[in-house]
């Protein structure tokens, strides 16, 4: 009867002593059947009685004052029920407290082509669309800023009336030790410039939202959002309605990838229109409009200077980044910090300096895309290291293996690294890809490249400052033996609903399919902050474990009394509750619940999770800390056609340290999906602009925005490395974002191995490879990439001694106890 052995409640990094029944298996996801039968209701699948349709009028100008709006003709069109302009929604909003710079409809100026200006509610989409043409908007165009360098160099006219300097939204200067001393100690110092082009999430589902206003004065909003809690807050603020009268329901997202993480204009507009018309209303963005919503990868220019000893040990690093933010703040302040935060968690960097700037430009706002602000610096760092290894005459895999951040250590910027499985990841891909046999040994045109990375498993601090948990779970045990889990988390395809079911099933010894899941509904579920920053499994998982353990503790004493054994001998498994020493002596879970309910009343529990306190206490220390860091290593094999510059990637080997697998099939899916998205970014995906000073979107369509089809996607060999982390539920860390990061630099490094040219810019298009090959033929530097980093008015640096130089994580001169940095 080994299978009925009592399980320990201990879950702190001692996986070997635990026996799992559910965790670690490859279970069919709880929503899989609905998804394969087309039964899943996405936001645009909602059709409500008497429903109206909304459309947004968007700006044709990249940067202009609005001098007049006349909507009278639109209002007079039969079938039009309401028209909104900025004066109807004058209160600003934004995802970060420091960037409340958006209006649902542009207030006095527009800041990119596609900025919403007016909204119409009508009985049909056709009438709403026709009404948009009848709205007369007078614009006074302003100089438009097409890119970050232009915005840095031209402070006027200012895109926003707030910024750290001119059109520079945010300036950061952080110094952890004396990097110049580090460079003086080095045997080799190298500088490089890199550029990572912007790209977008491209979820297959276009954003949609519906709203309904009950005569009783309650508002319900359904939306394809990853963050119903933040939408809830933004609606309450902009509509000036008590949050208690607003219900936000996050529909299952048809892909998110970070693109549905901001509160959006269209969500606020349908809510307002529902209130005004008293009728349910829906808006579905066109694919073109999804490109205008954007919030994708920031185009980022980077400069890095690193000193190394002969053996590859880093003595100091100075990293600069300049982000092209687009027209609004969005998550941009956090994104900027992220371009400098995680360099330190892979290889020891004893002294580190980071300078980051984000410029406003007149393009759709950039924000968080899978990897949020970290794929760009990771690309730079890993290609830079490849160059350093070559100069040192070292194998790049060997260089990395020799210099790994030790587990349970603090980094120069005060990030607390727990478990660290990167070494095992490197060993897996090196062995699997036959690295040593292939590197530098393949025929001209074929190459192999390696890169590594790390990512956070949830941010240590919330977006808005508060002391409450980041995730909450309520659990209801039914007399029939069913258990319902209520959690504010949002299912975006990553499998978060299934994680809740599996974790509760594991603790209570039930079949995951007997667990009902209710998620993403602000009326029904306790707050979870949302599906972003790879936080969901760790945070909802820990909250679910707590709730389920409390249910077990509530039920167990009653069963112990009934069985006349001590309570600590009561075990939950296989749908039964029993004496661990006589497994046949027990009763069905449903009967156990009934006994507990008879004695205690309704059987329900709650659980919640708050991340551990971060070590850094300086201004800006809020971005980077995480309960646990995942690690990835990647080897890419490429074929480069020197005649055309076309790069093909036949195969990628990826190893990912996920801490502990909860659902094996989901882990595989997340890793393969990350590799796919990283491959797209490496080879083809880019937000390109044209015309009118390069601010008109060149390609707001799925055909012209190139993403990998089945014909471009490579074979993937996946290794799942488990190194259970004490902070993760059963030891689990993230796997949904991290495995994207090493792919672009691995491909770039492989291209160099294949044809001897450095492409220091993604996407690595045939044109760039071809140009670099031409330069090589002419005896010029065999490289394609940026050639300058502009002068930026950096502020006085915040100087924070690294842990090994003493100090307590505060900045020099900082008043004691001051903690700033809410931009998690």
């Amino acid at each position, binding site marked *: 009867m080994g299978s009925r052995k009592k399980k320990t409640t201990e879950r702190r990094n001692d996986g070997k002593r635990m026996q799992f029944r559910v965790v670690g298996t490859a279970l069919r996801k709880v929503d899989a059947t609905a998804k*394969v039968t087309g039964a899943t209701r996405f936001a645009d699948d909602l059709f409500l009685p008497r429903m109206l349709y909304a459309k947004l009028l968007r700006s044709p100008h990249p940067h202009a004052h609005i001098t007049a709006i006349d909507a009278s003709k639109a209002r007079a069109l039969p079938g039009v029920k309401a028209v909104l302009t900025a004066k109807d929604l004058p209160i600003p909003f934004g995802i970060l407290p420091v960037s409340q710079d958006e209006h649902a409809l542009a207030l006095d100026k527009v800041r990119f082509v596609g900025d919403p200006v007016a909204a119409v509610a009508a009985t049909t989409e056709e009438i709403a669309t026709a009404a948009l043409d009848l709205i007369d908007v007078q614009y006074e165009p302003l100089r438009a800023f097409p890119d970050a360098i232009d915005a840095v160099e031209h402070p006027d006219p200012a895109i926003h009336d707030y910024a750290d300097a001119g059109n520079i939204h945010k300036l950061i200067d952080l110094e952890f030790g004396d990097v110049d001393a580090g460079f003086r100690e080095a045997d080799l110092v190298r500088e490089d410039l890199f550029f990572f082009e912007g790209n977008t999430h491209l979820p*297959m589902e276009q954003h949609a939202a519906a709203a309904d206003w009950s005569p009783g004065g309650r508002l319900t909003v359904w939306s394809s959002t990853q963050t119903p809690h933040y939408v809830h807050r933004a609606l309450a603020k902009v509509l000036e309605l008590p949050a208690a009268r607003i219900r936000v329901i996050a529909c299952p997202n*048809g892909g998110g990838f970070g693109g549905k993480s901001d509160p959006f204009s269209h969500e606020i507009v349908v809510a307002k229109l529902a209130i005004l018309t008293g009728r349910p209303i829906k808006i579905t963005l066109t694919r073109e409009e999804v490109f205008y919503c954007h919030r994708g990868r920031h185009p980022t220019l980077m400069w890095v200077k690193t000193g190394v000893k002969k053996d590859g040990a880093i003595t100091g690093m100075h990293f600069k980044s300049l982000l092209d933010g687009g027209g609004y703040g969005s998550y941009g302040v956090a994104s900027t910090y992220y371009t400098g935060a995680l360099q330190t968690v892979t290889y020891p960097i004893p002294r580190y300096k980071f300078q980051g700037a984000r410029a406003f430009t007149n393009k759709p706002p950039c924000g968080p895309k899978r990897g949020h602000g970290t794929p760009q610096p990771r690309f730079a760092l890993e290609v830079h290291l490849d160059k350093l290894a070559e100069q040192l005459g070292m194998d790049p895999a060997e260089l990395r293996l020799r210099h790994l951040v030790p587990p349970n250590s603090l980094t120069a910027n005060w990030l607390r690294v727990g478990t660290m499985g990167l070494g095992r990841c490197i060993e897996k891909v090196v062995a699997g890809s036959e690295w040593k046999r292939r590197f530098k040994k393949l025929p001209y045109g074929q190459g192999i490249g390696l890169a590594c990375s790390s990512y956070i498993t949830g941010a240590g601090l919330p977006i808005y400052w508060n002391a409450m948990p980041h995730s909450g779970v309520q659990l209801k045990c039914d007399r029939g033996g069913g258990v319902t889990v209520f959690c504010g988390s949002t299912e975006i*395809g990553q499998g978060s609903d299934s994680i809740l079911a599996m974790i509760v099933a594991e603790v209570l010894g039930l079949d995951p399919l007997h667990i009902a899941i209710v998620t993403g509904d602000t009326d029904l579920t306790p707050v979870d902050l949302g599906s972003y920053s790879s936080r969901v499994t760790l945070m909802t998982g820990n909250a679910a474990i707590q709730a389920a353990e409390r249910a077990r503790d509530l039920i167990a004493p009653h069963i112990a009394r009934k069985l006349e054994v001590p309570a600590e001998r009561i075990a939950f498994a296989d749908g039964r509750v029993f004496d661990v020493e006589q497994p046949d002596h027990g009763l069905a879970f449903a009967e156990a619940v009934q006994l507990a309910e008879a004695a205690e009343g309704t059987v329900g529990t709650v659980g919640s999770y708050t991340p551990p306190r971060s070590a850094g206490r300086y201004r800006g220390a809020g971005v980077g800390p995480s309960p646990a860091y995942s690690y990835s290593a990647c080897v890419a094999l490429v074929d480069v056609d020197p005649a055309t510059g076309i790069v093909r990637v036949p195969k990628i080997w990826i190893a990912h340290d996920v801490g502990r697998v909860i659902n094996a099939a989901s882990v*595989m899916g997340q890793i*393969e999906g990350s590799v796919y998205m990283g491959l797209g970014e490496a080879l083809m995906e880019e937000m390109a602009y044209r015309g009118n000073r390069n601010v008109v979107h060149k390609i707001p369509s799925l055909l012209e925005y190139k993403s990998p089809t089945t014909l471009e996607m490579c074979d993937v060999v996946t290794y799942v490395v488990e190194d259970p982390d004490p902070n993760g539920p059963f030891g689990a860390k993230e796997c949904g974002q991290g495995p994207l990061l090493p792919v672009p630099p691995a491909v770039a490094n492989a291209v160099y191995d294949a044809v001897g040219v450095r492409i220091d810019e993604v996407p690595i298009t045939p044109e760039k490879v071809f140009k670099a090959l031409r330069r090589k033929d002419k005896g010029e530097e065999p490289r394609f990439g940026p050639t300058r980093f502009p002068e930026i008015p950096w502020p006085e640096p915040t100087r924070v001694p690294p842990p090994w130089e003493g100090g307590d994580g505060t900045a020099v001169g900082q008043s004691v106890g001051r903690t700033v940095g809410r931009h998690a």
Partner: protein
Amino acid sequence: MPDAKAKIALDVNGEPVEVAFAPHKTLLEVLREDLGLTGTKHGCELGECGTCTVLVDGTPVLSCLVLGLACAGRRVKTVEGMADGGVLHPLQKAFAELGAAQCGYCTPAFLLTADALLAENPHPARDQIKEALAGNLCRCTGYIKIYEAVELAAARMRGEKAEPARETLYGQP
């Protein structure tokens, strides 16, 4: 003002259907808005992503590019018509087992495209599967679990007792 409605008769998922709709409507709109078959999704409504794929007389078509009127008398199959009563089609079962449906938004289109492929070629090679699915975009899976699910379903439809390979679900050792 919208034109007067047109009425057609067609076969949808094996059932005779009569439906009236504005004549400019696409098959996609007729299915979703007039027949309540919201299992058919849309990603662009411009014929670029494959998300709205349905079968017309057994052939995959982009329902966003086909006028509803053009389907009079035709046989249309949507994802709602794949399961046999409560029993999932082998493709649906394999997609669910392997996690080939993540967000699930492109899934109906992939299922129907694969259904047409297997009707024509019960034993497709991996490259033939890729070729057949090249017009359908998926942003979640990297397509790999989709290929594996099509192969698993194909094997089962041929009567083989196929189970997912261990490395498919757990990775390489």
